[in-house]
């Protein structure tokens, strides 16, 4: 099997592989978020009885992980590849291993292992059991059976597979410095993103106007609450929840949130997420009404 020789090959290979497994190939969500799990195609679709199989790339923003473009593998903006399979198929692990083979990691010469790592997102009120998947000691994937989202039990349980694309690509391409990754045969990752990492690190740590951000947080929270009263609009409300979460992450990176306040802010985002999830379960796609009979 040929290795995915460029970053975009890796993405295309995964897209093709999961499309072949019957997944919807969705596009990234157009809001800034900390992880693919925040995509409504995961958070909201994980709830309720309807089956759902989807895969997508999601740009993920982690303002405090910014390193001014100097760290070999830490980025404040990176890509996750996310697969969500509901209900969790019996052969979920096998399907996953198939994807690893597809991108050129041959289990006959590598050491692939499932090491306990229960995933939890306090901001989403979500939790699941699973593993981080190791390839030769390197964590390449988070593999989780969702048990709860927005504080609500998942039934059926779904499988969430999250690949850290840069890390995986670095492994496949045998590259030590993320910016050296071949994005395609012409451009390196650094040519695409290095300047962004430098500028956004300055923004995240130094320049972001905290007063504005505090206001963004308040506004998003207020708008989210408003959208959940009267005729409830689960999806627009959830957008506001995502915005509040990102504002919080930026404030956190700016170091203006104390330890005690931190827990309170996380609690506020969680409350929004929970309310959105509840509204979703009463919406047409969230609840289950057999159309016939």
């Amino acid at each position, binding site marked *: 099997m040929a290795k995915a020789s460029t970053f975009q090959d890796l993405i295309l290979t995964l897209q093709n592989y999961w499309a072949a497994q019957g997944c919807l190939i969705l596009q990234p969500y157009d809001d800034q978020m900390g992880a693919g799990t925040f995509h409504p195609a995961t958070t909201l679709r994980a709830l309720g009885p309807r089956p759902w199989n989807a895969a997508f790339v999601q740009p993920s923003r982690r303002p405090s992980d910014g390193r001014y473009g100097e760290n070999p593998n830490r980025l404040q903006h990176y890509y996750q590849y996310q697969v969500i399979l509901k209900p969790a198929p019996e052969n979920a692990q096998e399907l996953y291993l198939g994807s690893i083979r597809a991108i050129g990691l041959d289990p006959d*010469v590598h050491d692939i292992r499932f090491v306990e790592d229960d995933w939890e997102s306090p901001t989403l009120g979500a939790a699941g059991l699973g593993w981080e998947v190791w390839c030769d000691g390197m964590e390449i994937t988070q593999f989780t059976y969702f048990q709860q989202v927005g504080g609500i039990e998942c039934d059926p349980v779904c499988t969430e597979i999250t690949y850290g694309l840069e890390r995986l690509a670095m492994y496949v391409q045998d590259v030590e410095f993320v910016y050296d990754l071949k994005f395609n045969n012409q451009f390196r990752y650094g040519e695409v993103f290095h300047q962004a990492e430098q500028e956004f690190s300055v923004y995240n740590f130094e320049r972001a106007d905290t007063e504005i951000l505090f206001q963004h947080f308040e506004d998003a929270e207020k708008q989210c609450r408003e959208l959940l009263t009267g005729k409830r609009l689960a999806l627009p409300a959830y957008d506001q929840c995502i915005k509040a979460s990102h504002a919080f992450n930026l404030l956190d990176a700016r170091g203006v949130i104390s*330890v005690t306040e931190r827990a309170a802010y996380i609690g506020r985002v969680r409350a929004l997420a929970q309310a959105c999830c509840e509204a979703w379960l009463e919406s047409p796609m969230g609840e289950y009404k057999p159309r016939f009979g």
Partner: protein
Amino acid sequence: MPDLLLELFSEEIPARMQAGAARDLERLMVGALTDRGYLFEGIKAFAGPRRLTLAIAGLPARQKDVREELKGPKTDAPQAALDGFLRKTGLTRDKLKVEKTLKGDVYMAVIERAGRETVHVLAQIIPEVMAKLPWPKSMRWKPGLSVRWVRPLHSILCTFDGELVPFSFAGISSGLHTRGHRFLSQGKIEAKRFDDYAQKLKAAHVVLEADERAAIIFEGVKQAAFVHGLEMIPDEGLLAEVSGLAEWPVVYIGTIQDEFMDVPAEILQTSMRTHQKYFSLREPKTGRMANRFGLVANMIATDGGKEIVAGNERVLRARLSDAKFFWDEDRKHSLASRVKKLEGIVFHAKLGTQYERVERIEKSAAEIAAKIGADVEMARRAARLCKADLTSGVVGEFPELQGVMGRYYAMHDEENAAVADAIRDHYKPVGPSDAVPTDKVAISVALADKLDALTGFFAAGEKPTGSGDPFALRRAALGVIRIVLENKLRLPLIVDADLLSFFADRLKVALKEKGTRHDLIDAIFSLGHEDDLVRLVARVEALQTFLKTDDGANLLAGYKRASNILKIEEKKDGKIFISEVNESLLSESAEKALLSTLTKARAAIAPLLEKEDFAGAMKQMAALRVPVDAFFDGVKVNVDDRQVRENRLNLLAALRVTLHQVADFSRIEG
């Protein structure tokens, strides 16, 4: 006799849960079988990354027949009682026997239950046992089913005497098949008996037994290290963990790049252990950490492990670059400059920030230093800096390196060596097997740190409970006790009564291992004025030695007798006898002799106690034994003459007071 084989095959079971699951499976099956009258020859449970296995040898093919006689109501009891008995036994009245007893005729039911075929019993109890298996954390995975397992369960193999035991759990029917290693074997494996099963699994690259996997890893790392002229740094916890991460463990050796070798060994070792689960190696002669590590894979790679080793080395480089980055960054700021940052770290909601804590520790360390003859300024300095490394990048990444890193940074800042060592050692002892600090500066800070936590949490009402001790206060108290005793520090423990009794309890636990009686500790503690642990222990030891002698045992008996009499008479009279003995009222020679010995002993004991010559004090008390015995042999206390009676009670009270100089004998058992 037939055997049972049970295998529960699932997705990867967390390493830390495997041993417990095997124990629980065994325990629950033993319980279920004995409840049903079974005896068997042997049982053994196995756990690994993907399977729990249970083998029972010599289990009878049929359950024993059971004959039970149940006594029912009397024949003249009301109908309702009889109806109830019939319901309970499931019999009709004509099946009951009548038996004559002393209380009259009663109904007897004889219930005979034929034993069932064991295979049916097993089919019933195994799903029940599986449902009861207490995983520390478990999950749902099947739509519409609330059944839980640690991770999705895939198959159940179950045979008895080589035949299928048919049952189902979580919608999975038991069968005769399992699977081997995830990558080193293919297809299903049929097994009907344990030996065959174990053999086929081994052929399919699965080592069933955790101990065997651990031995393979241990020997593997040892051998491979030896080839490089190195030895492994033993790590039981890591060994147990990696044994649970591979069905077919294969050891490879990797190399640490030179650029990381000047990073402190503790950082390298911690990073390798916690993130990568690698074994560190060292040079046998110097004990210096080597630039090699042992890794355990779950794979015999077709390329001999080239890719695996290269991959792991690459991951380690990234890990160590991170660690080295922190180490380099951390040294750009002095420890002293970090102290202020502790204002931003909450120690506990009720106890303020780490900065406030440091201020308290600094003050108290200086006081302790003055008392134990340590350099006060150095103790103050060490206390000031002791928590500063909590704001460093390395400790942020590896909290277990707190203190250790503080020492490195202090040395880098060219602090005094004793100050640097004290920063590291003030957390000690961190466990029962850890050594206590012996340098006086370190002792001052270590005691101040622990006493601050103890007094603070006690004042905040956060005392340990029977089951929980979230702030490790027991360990802190034990640490204080060990530091004081092992360094023979003469330092009064000035704490409130509540905390003192907590210390007393910890002391009992600590001394119990040395065979010291807990009641003797109480006997000294309840004197109420002993806050010097070293003296307290010396007293307890002298007392224990004394009580082992004939004189001691007899004197204790005499004391008990005197104190019982006093208790009764004091209750009767409604007063306590404390008056001086009136010599002129003494008539019997035995009471005169007792008084004179008592007076002498009392005078002699006080200065001996002063000098802390407890053995000497005990010797003086030993002299009391003969006159006390003689007194009880020859003198009657409760005589009609009121004055004589009270005088004799006062004499016994004098004995009590004399003995209480040394210990509260009423607390001594036996």
